[in-house]
């Protein structure tokens, strides 16, 4: 059984596709919009902006989040900024350049048409956010300020101190609250989606658990939208919030939605290194710091024990500047991460365990003064000091790569619809725009592009064309899905084992980080594929979940999410093993150039790998969407 992937890319020249498509799509008459209901799961940048925008259009929207308020979705933690092709700096930026940088940055594994549209609407996002009162940084003349980010040679990143994600999310959240007050959106906080309901081949609703009362409830709608984020927490340690999980997208996968490129995970080069076994999460230090910080390690392994200020200039290796002179410290994330791993593998890493490199601001402080640096990065420096007890104004930061973002996600067509009709997927939860590596400041752009501008147009076409039947929760598909959820909860609670979910999750994270992390090889991936089912068995026979299902039970929540990670991890490794090339964040050691750079195989792997669930215990089916590059010349990615 294979699904035919239909990307539904409109014909015509790249720059005209979106306009033409918007004209050709069917519209829903304003008076008819209120007859349609839409479920939006997730309230981050993508989910909140979509829910608010759909409600403004007149649809009846229900929005769900597992946090106590939609304002707490993990988009809030994004620090550095949001890209847009405004060319306010007159430095040669354009929609075409943002498009080109993104396709190249993604190592030519993204769909051209989607990326071009993303670059087009990027300019509208900034306008929209300014209108909502997002306090972007400004110059003395009152106009918007920009900074540079990795993988680009223009300054196109808009920012609000080191809290850009927070301010953009609060803008979307406030728009959402406005619509809740107006009655257009019904908000369900502290609700977790545990099942997707498909009726007659179409996504028609979800089953949720009320995390306070434990009540399992059915929700019916004419279309379902998932904006449930990425799966980086499969690794246990990541920069994601503790609650981030794969459950919503994985449940949809098991109901027939193809999962694309699950092995594409982004390891962010600048995070605070692991301090010990107790570590519960990793903290990012914004990429924007690389604008002024210089990355280095000692040239000689024997110097790694010395204090950084005692190591003279000639004994330091500013390896990014040395290896990639034109991008230097602003090399893209995958490249900077791998370079850090490489110098640490050579025994030149600093700090506990030798797993760290310096990010040094001494030159910038000398050049610009401490007060300028404080103004630019003050909150990040404070955060660093709070966590490490070291003062980065006086001594260099220690950083190391950590799991940060997942480019893979549910496969969607140009309309952001998955292989299940009616199920739309937006933001990090889908796979579409970043290829094998995402550039900095592009996640916020994509989440808001999908939620504010793309989905509200395309979902209308789906509703107008498919004309969903009237349906309520008495339909047998809903009661069956409720039974499934209840059975699963009962099974978890009945295990009564001896290990906490966290301890098993740490073990899974260790397997993935070692075998499916910054560098992968066939042998390691096969070992992971053998180890994961054993760990899953351990989980299902030995996890301890105190308490009941009829109350707030955080142990049950964790265990339920881990159960899905334990299955999903296998899909990640399967995908990583099958992709016999290196591209972006996916680095297969067998496939590298003589100087250690990623070696792509465009002849055999210029496609999206969309995996389809084939049933319990069966190998997933691989579907391929060939990627055609008509506008960008496929070249070896070079930042030298």
């Amino acid at each position, binding site marked *: 059984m294979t699904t035919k992937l239909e990307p539904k890319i409109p014909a015509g020249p790249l720059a005209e596709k979106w306009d033409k498509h918007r004209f050709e799509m069917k519209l829903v008459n304003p008076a008819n919009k209120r007859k349609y209901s839409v479920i939006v799961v997730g309230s981050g940048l993508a989910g909140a902006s979509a829910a608010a925008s759909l409600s403004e259009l007149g649809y009846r929207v229900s929005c769900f989040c597992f946090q106590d308020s939609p304002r707490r979705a993990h988009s809030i933690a994004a620090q550095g900024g949001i890209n847009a092709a405004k060319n306010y700096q007159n430095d040669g930026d354009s929609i075409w350049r943002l498009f080109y940088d993104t396709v190249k940055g993604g190592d030519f594994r993204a769909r051209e048409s989607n990326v071009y549209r993303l670059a087009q609407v990027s300019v509208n996002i900034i306008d929209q*956010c300014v209108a909502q009162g997002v306090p972007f940084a400004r110059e003395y003349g009152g106009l918007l300020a920009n900074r540079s980010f990795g993988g680009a040679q223009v300054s196109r990143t808009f920012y609000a101190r080191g809290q850009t994600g927070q301010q953009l999310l609060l803008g979307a959240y406030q728009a959402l609250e406005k619509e809740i007050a107006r009655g257009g959106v019904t908000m369900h906080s502290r609700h977790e989606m545990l099942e997707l309901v498909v009726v007659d081949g179409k996504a028609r609703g979800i089953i949720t658990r009320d995390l306070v009362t434990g009540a399992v409830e059915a929700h019916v709608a004419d279309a379902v939208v998932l904006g449930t984020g990425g799966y980086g927490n499969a690794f246990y340690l990541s920069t994601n*919030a503790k609650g981030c999980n794969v459950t919503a997208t994985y449940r949809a996968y098991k109901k027939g939605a193809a999962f694309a490129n699950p092995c594409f995970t982004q390891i962010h080069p600048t995070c605070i290194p692991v301090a010990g076994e107790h570590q519960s999460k990793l903290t990012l230090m914004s990429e924007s710091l690389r604008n002024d910080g210089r990355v280095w390690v000692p040239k000689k392994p024997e110097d790694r024990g010395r204090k950084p200020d005692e190591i003279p200039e000639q004994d330091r290796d500013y390896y990014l500047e040395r290896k990639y002179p034109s991008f230097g410290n602003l090399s893209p994330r995958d490249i900077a991460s791998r370079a850090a791993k490489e110098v640490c593998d050579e025994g030149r890493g600093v700090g506990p365990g030798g797993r760290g490199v310096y990010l040094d601001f001494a030159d910038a402080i000398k050049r610009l003064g401490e007060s300028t640096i404080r103004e630019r990065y003050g909150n990040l420096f404070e955060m660093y000091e709070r966590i490490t007890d070291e003062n980065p104004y006086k001594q260099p930061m220690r950083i190391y790569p950590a799991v940060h973002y997942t480019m893979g996600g549910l496969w969607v067509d140009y309309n952001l619809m998955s292989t299940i009709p009616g199920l739309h997927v937006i933001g990090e939860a889908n796979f579409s725009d970043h290829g094998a590596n995402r550039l900095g400041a592009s996640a916020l752009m994509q989440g808001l592009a999908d939620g504010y501008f793309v989905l509200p147009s395309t979902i209308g076409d789906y509703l107008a064309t498919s004309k969903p039947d009237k349906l309520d929760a008495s339909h047998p598909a809903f009661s069956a899905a409720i039974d499934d959820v209840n059975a699963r909860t009962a099974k978890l609670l009945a295990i009564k084992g001896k290990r906490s979910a966290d301890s098993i999750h740490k073990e899974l994270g260790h397997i993935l980080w070692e075998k499916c992390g910054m560098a992968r090889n066939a042998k390691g991936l096969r070992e992971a594929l053998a180890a994961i089912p054993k760990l899953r068995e351990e989980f299902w026979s030995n996890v301890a979940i105190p308490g009941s299902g009829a109350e707030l039970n955080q142990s049950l929540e964790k265990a339920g999410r881990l159960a899905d990670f334990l299955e999903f991890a296998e899909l990640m490794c399967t995908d990583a093993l099958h992709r016999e090339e290196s591209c972006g964040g996916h680095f297969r050691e067998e496939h590298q150039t003589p100087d250690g750079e990623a070696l792509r195989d465009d002849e055999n792997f210029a496609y999206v790998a969309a995996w389809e669930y084939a049933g319990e215990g069966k190998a997933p089916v691989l579907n391929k969407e060939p990627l055609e590059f008509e506008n960008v010349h496929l070249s070896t990615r070079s930042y030298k």
Partner: protein
Amino acid sequence: MRVLLHVWRQAGPGATGRLVDYEAADISPDMSFLEMLDVVNDRLTVKGEEPIAFDHDCREGICGSCGMMINGAAHGPMKLTTACQLHMRSFKDGDEIWIEPWRAKAFPVIKDLVVDRGAFDRIIQAGGFVSAPTGSAQDGNAIPIPKQNADQAMDAAACIGCGACVAACPNASASLFTAAKITHLGQLPQGQPERMKRALAMVHQMDLETFGGCTLFGECQEACPKGISIDTIAQMHRDYMLATAIRREESAIGGTG
């Protein structure tokens, strides 16, 4: 290190709560406060006992999920720091630590240290936004905003909605939270058209949610992990008084209530 915890345990919203003692041994000073609780919870779980429920998510001080009274101080002893960013190096070996939920009528306890802060969302619903439907915006640079205004708006917008201000206030007032939003939007040209309506509606909602009034103790400012200033409260009062006066005039002219 080893610390002795006295933790508020409450099975559910209607249940009677009490302080329960737990010994936390083998704690590293490099652990965050919540990682210390993770260790305690892991040990409870293995014994089959229910772990201590507490809200948390990003663990980097920005989502506003975590919040607890630690030795009587909201988010604990370190200034400008959320509970998740507090580290055990702020305590000494052998310390006793009292951990309780936010205490306020408007924040009912759900379980243990978890409270319902839905009242904050409803205050935002009342008027904490700019009505700018998607697609209706002009160019982002069309209206210059003096850097100083943008910076002051950002200072107020840094609020994470954690509720520490309410928990620290002897009146359990939500004035700092409400005022931060009123000040953020009031500093910007985009916030002007709805400024008066916003002040009236948000203050009114704050009262409806049973938060207390502000008597300028200043405890909120001390407790705020993001350093929001009580100057914002003065701004809120000015906007509110002006709005009340204008509303009277509008009523007189328009003849409507």
